[in-house]
């Protein structure tokens, strides 16, 4: 089979670090080729080189057998290489058609845009690749999965035959992932070559024809999915076996740390959290399963105090906190690991030692009587860096310089170091590599043994089943099932999450 892409001996050095070290990669035309590796393994750098965003220090690139030198994405596009970025680059206020033709507008005389020609071409592309989209919809009205499809169409519209998809599933919910995979297979059927960057092993195994694993900037190996298991891949990626979440023996006590009673949150009269009641005891991890958008986010906001509930009460350590401010709750020992660490977790431009104090700035050792203690903040940050294995040159660097996994370890460490009584862990391992994931699990497990009450909201069913002492399923704002993680399977959970199975009499 002809090779669409052939990379030989690609090396890229940044000051002090070799991002790509003598990488070879061969991608056959018309295949789905997955590149996997931990964060920092060199996947992004390699793709940037292939897309002309960075020049390699050494090595050669051949596209469709021809040696090429790429100096800009425009040249890559010229050669039929297109990249779908993880973060969408779409104008919300424009229609799908307008977004797709943006920068590649078909022109009529006098500088007028030929929308009809654009529409015809877009329809052709859509038909050819089996991508279904209404070209007149406003992008702001589209779901995440549909926006991603627009991004893919944008690339195809420009004539790309080789598509680089950069962690396309990171932003999608399970159903959307299925839809994406269907689209990707149709793209392949229509003759496109797909480079698929991912680090979720089950996804890689189900979609890829060939898998290349990178570790620390080097190619570890290229395998066929039929020949390997997820465990084998993980071993290739991190050099050891795939960690599994396992809570170990129960440490549940009888002391209730967090009690949610009949909590209701309405959004324009519609209840998005509907009479939710649950208890989390000291030493217990209560898991909340559910497809995203079923009220989990609103429930978390109500518990944290950033959103006022419309009905119901909240109690922490036996004290009513329904009317307490966020700060009062935090001071009582409410810890929080947010779902989106950039939005709710970090001051990205601030140094790590300032980020360590965030959420606890009123407490010792960060401050005393309203005055900040810089030595206290710095000492604590160093302590968190060491104990929670945050890989950073120093605590003076800005938070944005760290990789996702290290940012998450910093957040988890900052919460754990204050010894909270209750922890709200909202998708605590989303988008981080397996190594950091295992570290976060270990931290939660250790704190549980010390009596921490944890409410764990997660989309990772293995994580929920492995860590939780009890699992509730949330559907349309209600807790529709209470399950025992000792006996439940991901398949069962999935059935409850989608409403296919209903357990009577639970609340």
């Amino acid at each position, binding site marked *: 089979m002809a090779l669409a892409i052939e990379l030989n001996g690609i090396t890229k050095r940044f*000051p002090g*670090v070799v991002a790509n070290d003598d990488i070879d990669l061969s991608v056959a035309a018309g295949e789905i080729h997955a590149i996997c590796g931990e964060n920092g393994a060199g996947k992004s750098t390699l793709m940037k080189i292939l897309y002309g965003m960075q020049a390699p220090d050494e090595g050669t690139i051949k596209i469709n057998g021809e040696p090429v030198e790429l100096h800009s994405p425009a040249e890559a596009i010229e050669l039929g290489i297109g990249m779908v970025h993880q973060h969408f680059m779409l104008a919300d206020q424009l229609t799908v058609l307008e977004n797709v033709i943006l920068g590649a507008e078909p022109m009529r005389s006098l500088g007028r845009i030929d929308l009809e020609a654009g529409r015809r071409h877009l329809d052709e592309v859509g038909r050819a690749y089996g991508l279904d989209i209404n070209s007149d919809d406003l992008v702001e009205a589209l779901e995440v999965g549909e926006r991603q499809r627009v991004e893919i169409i944008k690339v195809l519209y420009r004539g790309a035959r080789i598509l680089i998809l950069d962690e396309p599933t990171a932003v999608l919910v399970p159903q959307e992932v299925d839809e994406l995979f269907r689209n990707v297979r149709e793209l392949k059927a229509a003759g496109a070559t797909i480079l698929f960057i991912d680090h979720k092993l089950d996804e890689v195994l189900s979609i890829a024809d060939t898998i290349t694993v990178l570790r620390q900037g080097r190619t570890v190996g290229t395998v066929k999915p039929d020949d390997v298991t997820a465990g084998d891949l993980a071993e290739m990626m991190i050099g050891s076996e795939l960690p599994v979440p396992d809570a170990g023996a129960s440490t549940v006590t009888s002391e209730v740390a967090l009690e949610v009673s009949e909590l209701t949150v309405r959004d324009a009269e519609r209840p998005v959290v509907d009479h939710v009641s649950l208890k989390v005891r000291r030493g217990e991890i209560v898991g909340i399963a559910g497809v995203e958008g079923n009220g989990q986010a609103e429930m978390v906001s109500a518990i944290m105090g950033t959103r006022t509930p419309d009905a119901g009460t909240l109690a922490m350590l036996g004290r009513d906190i329904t009317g307490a401010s966020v700060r009062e709750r935090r001071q009582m020992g409410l810890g929080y690991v947010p779902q989106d660490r950039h939005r709710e977790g970090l001051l990205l*431009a601030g140094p790590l030692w300032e980020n360590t104090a965030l959420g*606890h*700035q009123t407490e010792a050792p960060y401050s005393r009587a309203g005055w900040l203690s810089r030595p206290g903040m710095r000492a604590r940050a160093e302590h968190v860096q060491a104990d929670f294995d945050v890989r950073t040159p120093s605590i003076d660097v800005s938070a944005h*310089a760290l990789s996702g996994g290290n940012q998450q370890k910093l957040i988890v460490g900052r919460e754990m170091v204050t010894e909270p009584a209750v922890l709200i862990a909202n998708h605590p391992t989303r988008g981080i590599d397996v190594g950091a994931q295992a570290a976060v699990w270990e931290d939660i497990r250790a704190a549980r043994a010390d009596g921490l009450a944890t409410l764990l909201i997660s989309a990772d069913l293995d994580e929920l089943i492995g860590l939780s002492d009890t699992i509730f399923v949330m559907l349309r704002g209600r807790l529709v099932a209470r399950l025992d993680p000792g006996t439940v399977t991901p398949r069962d959970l999935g059935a409850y999450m989608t409403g296919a199975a209903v357990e009577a009499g639970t609340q």
Partner: protein
Amino acid sequence: MNHTLARRVMLASAAPLAAVVIAVVLSSIVLLVSGSNPLAAYVDMVQHASKLETGVDIFNRATPLYLAGVAAAIGFRMNLFNIGVEGQYLLAFIVAAHVGALVALPSALHIAVILLTAMAVGGAFSGAAGVLKVTRGVNEVISTIMLNAVAISGLAAWWIVEWQAGGEIAATGGRVGTEPIDDSGLMPDINSWLEVFTREVGQGKRLTGMLVVAAVVGIAYHALLNRTVFGYDLRSSGANPSASHVGGVSPKRMVVAAMTLSGIVAGLVGMTELMETGYYPSNPITLLGFTGIAVALLGRNHPVGVAFAALIFAFLDISSGILQISGAAAREIVEIMKGVIILTAVIAYEVVRRVREREEATAAAEAMATAPAGAP
């Protein structure tokens, strides 16, 4: 550790220095094109500025600019654009002038009453924009622009007639303005502080005592922002309101607090003039509030940076006066210089930010790569 600090300082000051150098170069081109000798103009300006009396003028000018800059900077640190410093200081100016004229008190107390009145008026007027923002969602840029009109063309224009000295125009020796404040309410100059280092200040120039107030404001601004929990709350809420909110900081409270504090400092801007003349004239020094925004921008909202920026602007304003006499160039060249300085500073700061970000990312990647073996 020490060399990284030195590097940081170097990076931080490289941008404004580059801005000034580029401004000088571009202004020289403009001067050459317009047929003037740039070197002669600069020599005139620097020679003029190096005279003690001109120096006093520069500091007197820099003082209100610094206060206006700090006022704008407080807003910027909270991601708020208080474009209403102009209205706030003029309104505070006229009310403080009126209140000061109404009371008779021992000097220190009299001055304190006047300054506190100005701060209260500025704070309340600016705080109102903050309240509008958090309760009604009114963008503070729009509301403060509107409130500028209310303050300047509305209230101040009305009250200057109401509070006209002697009830009639020209009743006080031909000048138009509010009833003058007793001498006890005027701030003494601090020429004697300056004369410790140099000769006696001539030409009847007086170094304003407000310089001390401005210095205190700068120190307080620095301490509040960097040394207190409140300052941490304010900065974190400005940098990331969502993260700060779940961290226990109410973004609404911080918006009102920042706008109020900004207005309190803005209220002091007009006091340099009031403390000298004792009344609100029909033509007070205006545009200090808008210039303050530029000063804050150039000074990176940093208490010391803003001070340098205010001095640069004051130097340009005052020293260019000599150009009218010497005829070396048109005085307006300094306006071009100010504009170019701001534009280049904004670009240079962005370049420095990116350089620093890249360096940090590289260093962090290095830390990953050299992690202990066996760690994931």
